[in-house]
């Protein structure tokens, strides 16, 4: 029987959660015995090659591309996991959520203390994904099956949850592995 597949992505995140996946150390060898990685920055596969058992989502949705990627993960993955605080509540990018988007643009491209922008242009190329008016947690965009909290979630948290899911056991994390920081 073919191994189940795992896909991962970083939306509006800092790749810290992916670093935490790598932080499972030598257990990553056990992990590749259990699964194949599909679309993921870990193997640099850009497009889904088929149905995945588990999708790990780092980061929330700050632009339209994030939403598209998240929806395609929902479409291709049996189980979708919000990995880390940004996916769960927006995280650091969501600090802008209490500030109108135009003010954010103005600060970043016109008025910020270190800005040098003589033409006073705000990037608006059609190639660039449009920013959403605020950063959304993943579960406010698609159905999310599990949430692994943390900034980043500890490697043990990720390992325990993945192994439980891949061996058809309930995800029952001990108290010390569920932390919001």
């Amino acid at each position, binding site marked *: 029987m073919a191994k189940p597949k795992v896909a991962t992505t970083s939306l509006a995140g800092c790749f810290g959660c992916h670093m935490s996946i790598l932080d499972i150390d030598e257990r990553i060898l056990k992990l590749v015995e259990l699964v194949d990685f599909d679309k993921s920055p870990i193997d640099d596969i850009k497009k889904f090659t088929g149905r995945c058992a588990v999708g790990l989502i780092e980061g929330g949705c700050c632009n339209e591309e994030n939403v598209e990627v998240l929806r395609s993960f929902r479409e291709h993955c049996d189980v979708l996991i919000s990995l880390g605080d940004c996916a769960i509540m927006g995280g650091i990018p969501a*600090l802008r*959520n209490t500030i109108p988007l135009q003010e954010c643009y103005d600060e970043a491209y016109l008025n910020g203390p270190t800005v040098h922008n003589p033409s006073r242009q705000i990037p608006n190329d059609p190639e660039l994904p449009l920013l959403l008016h605020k950063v959304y947690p993943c579960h406010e965009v698609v159905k999310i099956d599990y949430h692994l909290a943390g900034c980043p979630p500890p490697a043990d948290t990720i390992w325990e949850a993945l192994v439980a899911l891949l061996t058809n056991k309930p995800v029952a994390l001990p108290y010390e592995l569920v932390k919001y920081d």
Partner: protein
Amino acid sequence: MSSTIEFTINGKDITGRPGQTVLEAAQDAGVYIPRLCYMRGLAAFGACRVCTVLVNGRPQAACTQTVAPGMVVENNTEKMTAFRRNLIDMLFVEGNHFCMFCEKSGNCELQALAYRFGIAAPKYPYMFQPREVDMSHGDVFIDRNRCVLCGRCVRASRDVDGKHVFDFVGRGLHKRIAVNAEALLGDTELAVTDKAAEACPVGAIVKKRVGYAVPVGQRLYDHKPIGSEIESTAL
């Protein structure tokens, strides 16, 4: 009048003293009733409703309800835990709680309650309302993003410090902590040694130049859930 009062919590016999609240009688018997706005030494307030229990089938705040003979109290039932979980969920989405960089993280009672109830993500949509930060005081700051309106600072300043530095203004979603001055916290009589400066259960009123003093792994709620210190005293 008898000097003890017998009642039950989840079927367990508890002995309280006349005038004692359900929450305190339970605590003395090693039964933890989750709470947020209650603080020993401050007047009971009944604001957060996290300590709500069923008394003879009726919801009552355990921090304000005094004990009476033969009371039947339901505390950690599935129904009450679901109710409390919803309250914590609502507090998380109403404020802007960025645990990942908060100085209080690991020692925060709101966060600890969420851990205790096993909350992975709140079920309600986040509101992301703008809230004011006041850095004007030399030794203490207010970050209203993290405020849960428990009123501990109000009571501590008024009743313990005798200064009445804090109070509530506004109603409903607009309710917020205000300071007793023309403008800012720096204009008040608040001193860093005041009870009000350390009464906050969350990271809304924080002493400056303390920062992340306790390393991760050694903080109050890193290893054991909030309330376990009370439960461990049970006979």
